[in-house]
């Protein structure tokens, strides 16, 4: 999702500048997030270009990332790119849900409220795949976790 900055996505947890050294803390969205190395590489690259010769990237595992941390700006960027932004994440004990997850979504392309889930697992771990019943276009929904 290149339209989001790491801060928009909520994975950027902390930055500390101490003279020439920058310490950046990031957290993975999902345990197996394959983008962590790329995020780290991008951070080092951008900060080096910005004049910080020493960049340290730390991984923070707790608290676990939540889709609630995606910023308002990030949500607007997602919608502008044709993706559906997550609703509030569930909190507390998790019950088994045997019927399809209910989400009140609108199609990011035509605005229709008539949508149906195709799969809870989309092109990446953080997205579910939906389809608009009116314009028939499939679209990605960023999942609530």
């Amino acid at each position, binding site marked *: 999702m290149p339209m989001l900055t790491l801060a928009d996505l909520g994975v950027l947890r902390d930055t500390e500048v101490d003279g020439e050294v920058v310490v950046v*803390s990031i957290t*993975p969205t*999902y*345990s*197996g*997030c*394959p983008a*962590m*190395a*790329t995020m*780290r*590489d*991008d951070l080092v*690259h951008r900060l080096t270009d910005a004049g910080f010769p020493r960049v*340290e*990237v*730390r*991984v*923070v*595992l*707790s*608290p*676990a*990332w939540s889709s609630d941390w995606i910023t308002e700006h990030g949500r607007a960027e997602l919608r502008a790119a044709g993706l559906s932004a997550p609703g509030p994440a569930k909190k507390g*004990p*998790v019950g*088994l*849900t*045997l*019927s*399809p*997850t209910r989400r009140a979504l609108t199609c990011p392309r035509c605005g229709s409220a008539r949508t149906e889930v*195709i*799969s*809870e*697992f*989309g*092109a*990446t*771990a953080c997205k579910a*795949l939906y389809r608009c019943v009116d314009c028939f276009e499939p679209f990605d929904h960023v*999942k609530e*976790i």
Partner: protein
Amino acid sequence: MNHDSVYDGLLGGDSSQWAFGTDFEDPLAGVDTTVPAGVDGGELAAYCLMLGDDTLVLSQRLAEWCSRAPELEEDIALANMALDLLGQARLLLARAAAADPAVVPVLPAGSPVPAEDALAFFREAGQFRNVRLAEVVNGDFAHVVVRLLLFSIARLAVLQRLSGSGDAVLAAVAAKGVKELTYHRDWAGRWFLTLAQGTEESRKRLVSALEQLWPLRDELVTAHPVELSLAAAGVGVDPAGVRDETDAVLDQVLAVAEVDRPQRAPLAGIGGRTGRDGMHTEALSRMLAEMQVVARAHPSGRW
């Protein structure tokens, strides 16, 4: 380094890196891995291997489904769940190595293989601590649905308790895993219903898979002495303590699906030893042979 090439990011830009394995970054970089006071590092490492090997081995079995699922969407779903489990395995194996470096296989001096990869690729079957449910050979689609249902119900119950662990790494891995396993369990439960209420053929296959896998379920909710010891220290979870809860969730699915609970007895250990003790079925050796062959052929391979 030329940052305009996407391959630089993939390769980490460091030619000293090992050419294989999951990634090029220590997944616990910057995380405090001090062993909690009063806990034996060796026991903590063994416990992390138990949980981590479950997810590593099951992840490999799910990855074998890639391009073979009945629909593209389910192919992607299985790959996504495999990735979640692999991510959990990386953290748990790295945590095991940090808790007790003695568990990591010794490779030739100067070997570029990180500890988590040494644990994944250079241990023999008898050193794996996973439950046997994770390792048995894949069957049809009903088989993977039942395997994931049985596993995710028990694992979710354990992780919910483990998120309060006295070990900060285990607590963090568990809190994150709860979110992921919730999706896995829902996926498996929904497919269980769909197959049970589908055609005569789908129901027959589902019931057959449940009967076949049922003897392997007990190991998920049976405590090993290491689990008991760490549970007593407030660091681990006694899986026998979640037996009632997993029964209740499973009964909920079985009731809606109108499928009877199988009556088959648990698969016995050999001389009392089961997967948690490193006693496995033949399937694990064969699976590891495929998973490990390239890494073992090129232990010093670099990009």
